């Protein structure tokens, strides 16, 4: 135990996996089931229209069952034995590079498995109702299954290549689902934008993988983490920064945040599953999974915290200004992931809070999004909150579940957000030093703004006078949609307490991220400040959006409002920095290739053609001139012969 503590103090937690047995060795089913579902639904075509959604849901539930059994089996193992390895097949053998397709099942990945399959299954069920009238419902479920499979591969892979495959796989699923209503140009553009911005992040991840191979000669977690301390500081920092770039792309952190708001073009269950609960949190997973690397590089960690803090504020500010309910929630997602990234960058015990907040967020944000979907369902797919109002009487279940999710996210004491978010804020202050103070206060400020914008959403939607369009007749959603809402609401209430109280989750994750420090206080001075700021935020929203009537068209705001409404000019910046110059560069290059390179080739051809056109004039058609040239030629030859002889 003492040696172990010494190793922990040095920042090394090396997991030694052993071959999985029993249920754990059948975990390949986790990926195989939804993948098979996607394959059947995509290849089966219209024949599977009738029962496609049922199959898709069944596959997701099946994966959840396998995950739950695996979890139970893992609980039966001793703490240090909880890292299991399932060997599937040899993937890429090439010289000294040898990538295997293995599954790495440890407490961290199993937590994600349960979140993905659990929330995923609920969203599958919800979608049966939500997409009931869509002619392409089967395709939707195929993509959802594809997403679940890819996401599971992402969190289960035992090496960075497997992770990368899942990483891009979820990107593909996200692309397909954002663009699900591809006949809308806005949806198609948003899908493409999401993929391309993600690719910028993937660039970082790819280069990180290359550096790892060049440094460690292997890409498996075991080898990379096992030898990380032998690498030079510069190398480790480089890997850390490149991984951070990847995480920024996937998790919509600054400066790669711009795609997430547009991604709301996709159907609402997609926003709930992919763009709130699971996929966008993959960046947090990446950082926590690679914590060995980050622990060796304080510089990389500092940048992670800066990105997290900046994004949590940016997202919150954007959330304040949006009238589109989904975009307000998307801003909130950005902000909450900012908290997670901040926590992950703080190091131990931040990892535990990052993942705990991630899981709690998975529940309450999925619930909020699905609730928003339920509201949109009632409002003829209108997303403008200025045309909502007073819905609590008409949609009681949606109101109650949305309300619980709302209380959870603003950190109402006792609900899950309170447990996890306070933990993060405490961890930031505990970091110490000026940077710790700054990060802590920023996180506090973010919490206040969160309370404000979420109250704004709540008040504009469910309270006040109805501001509906004329032909709108709100009604509660069918049971198949409300039951998932209720289950998610339960998670929003109890999830945080279940995980954090008594360090339950910290102990569970200990084999991965290290033992928790004893004596973590639940209530600190900051808890009080957070609560106070929350009350201020709610009060401000109350004054602005409940006491005063809300105009149906958005009033022209001041500079700050415009700034927030235009996503902090993120798109404008991208457009002027990359898109416009890119277009010019493209045009210039095409011109250069056609006129320059090809012009040279064609010019050469034209030159030869022109010369021969002139030279051929010598052929006059007069026999005697030919004869003359022959004589002259012969005379020259003879003369030359004479000259040579002499």
């Amino acid at each position: 135990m003492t040696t172990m503590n010494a190793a922990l103090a040095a920042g090394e937690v090396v997991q030694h996996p052993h071959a999985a047995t029993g249920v754990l060795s059948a975990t390949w089913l986790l990926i195989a089931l939804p993948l098979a579902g996607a394959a059947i639904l995509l290849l089966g075509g219209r024949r599977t229209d009738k029962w496609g959604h049922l199959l898709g849901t069944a596959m997701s539930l099946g994966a959840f069952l396998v995950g739950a059994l695996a979890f139970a089996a893992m609980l039966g193992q001793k703490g240090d034995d909880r890292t299991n390895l399932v060997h599937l097949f040899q993937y890429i053998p090439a010289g000294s590079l040898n990538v295997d397709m293995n599954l790495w099942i440890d407490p961290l990945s199993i937590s994600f498995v349960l979140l993905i399959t659990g929330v995923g299954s609920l969203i599958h069920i919800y979608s049966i109702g939500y997409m009931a009238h869509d002619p392409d419902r089967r395709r939707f479920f195929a993509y959802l299954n594809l997403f679940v499979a890819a996401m599971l591969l992402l969190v289960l892979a035992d090496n960075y290549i497997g992770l990368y495959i899942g990483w891009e796989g979820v990107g593909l699923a996200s692309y397909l689902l954002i663009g699900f209503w591809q006949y809308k140009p806005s949806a198609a553009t948003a899908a493409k934008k999401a993929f391309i911005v993600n690719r910028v992040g993937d660039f970082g991840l790819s280069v990180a993988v290359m550096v790892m191979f060049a440094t460690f000669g292997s890409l498996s977690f075991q080898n990379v983490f096992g030898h990380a301390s032998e690498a030079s500081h510069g190398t480790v920092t480089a890997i850390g920064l490149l991984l951070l770039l990847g995480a920024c792309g996937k998790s919509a952190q600054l400066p790669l945040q711009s795609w997430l708001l547009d991604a709301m073009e996709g159907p609402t269950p997609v926003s709930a599953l992919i763009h709130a609960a699971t996929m966008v949190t993959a960046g947090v997973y990446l950082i926590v999974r690679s914590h060995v690397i980050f622990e060796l590089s304080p510089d990389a960690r500092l940048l992670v915290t800066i990105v997290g803090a900046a994004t949590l504020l940016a997202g919150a500010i954007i959330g304040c200004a949006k009238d589109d309910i989904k975009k307000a929630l998307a801003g909130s997602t950005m902000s909450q992931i900012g908290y997670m990234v901040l926590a992950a960058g703080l190091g131990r015990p931040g990892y535990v809070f990052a993942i705990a907040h991630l899981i709690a967020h998975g529940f309450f944000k999925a619930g909020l999004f699905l609730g928003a979907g339920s509201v949109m369902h009632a409002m003829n797919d209108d997303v403008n909150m200025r045309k909502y109002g007073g819905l609590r009487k008409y949609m009681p279940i949606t109101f109650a579940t949305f309300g619980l999710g709302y209380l959870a996210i603003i950190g109402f004491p006792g609900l899950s957000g309170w447990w996890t978010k306070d933990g993060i804020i405490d961890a930031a202050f505990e970091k110490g030093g000026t940077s710790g103070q700054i990060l802590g206060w920023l996180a506090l400020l973010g919490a206040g703004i969160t309370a404000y914008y979420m109250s704004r959403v709540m008040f504009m939607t469910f309270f006040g006078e109805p501001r509906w369009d004329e032909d709108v007749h709100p009604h509660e959603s069918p049971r198949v949609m409300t039951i998932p809402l209720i289950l998610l609401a339960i998670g929003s209430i109890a999830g945080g307490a279940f995980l954090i109280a008594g360090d339950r989750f910290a102990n569970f994750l200990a084999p991965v991220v290290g033992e928790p420090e004893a004596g973590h206080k639940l209530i600190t001075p900051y808890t009080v400040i957070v609560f106070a700021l929350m009350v201020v935020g709610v009060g401000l929203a109350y004054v602005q959006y409940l006491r005063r009537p809300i105009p149906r068209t958005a009033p022209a705001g001041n500079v700050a409002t415009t700034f927030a409404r235009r996503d902090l000019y993120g798109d404008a910046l991208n457009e002027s920095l990359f898109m416009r110059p890119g277009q010019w560069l493209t045009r210039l290059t095409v011109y250069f290739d056609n006129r320059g390179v090809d012009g040279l080739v064609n010019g050469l051809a034209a030159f030869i053609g022109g010369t021969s056109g002139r030279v051929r004039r010598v052929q006059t058609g007069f026999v005697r001139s030919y004869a003359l040239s022959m004589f002259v030629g012969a005379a020259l030859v003879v003369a030359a012969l004479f000259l040579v002889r002499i």
Partner: protein
Amino acid sequence: MTDHYLVLSAILFTIGAVGVLIRRNAIVVFMCVELMLNATNLAFVSFARMHGSLDGQIIAFFVMVVAAAEVVVGLAIIMTIFRSRKSSSVDDANLLKY
């Protein structure tokens, strides 16, 4: 002694060559070509005599055969051209050009 034959051969060849270049009438040009051929024949035979070998004489026979064949084809072409163009000037037949 044979030097004189060579000089004669050179003179005949030059007359023929000049004729080919300056005359327009196809028949005359043709005859000048024959003159050149026979000038070379004379040179061949003279050299054969000088070197005491038969090679030159044999080649002279070859040249005669070729010349005869050429007369056959050439005259036929000239005849045909004359029939179609009512002219035997080589300058009029200049369609085969660039």
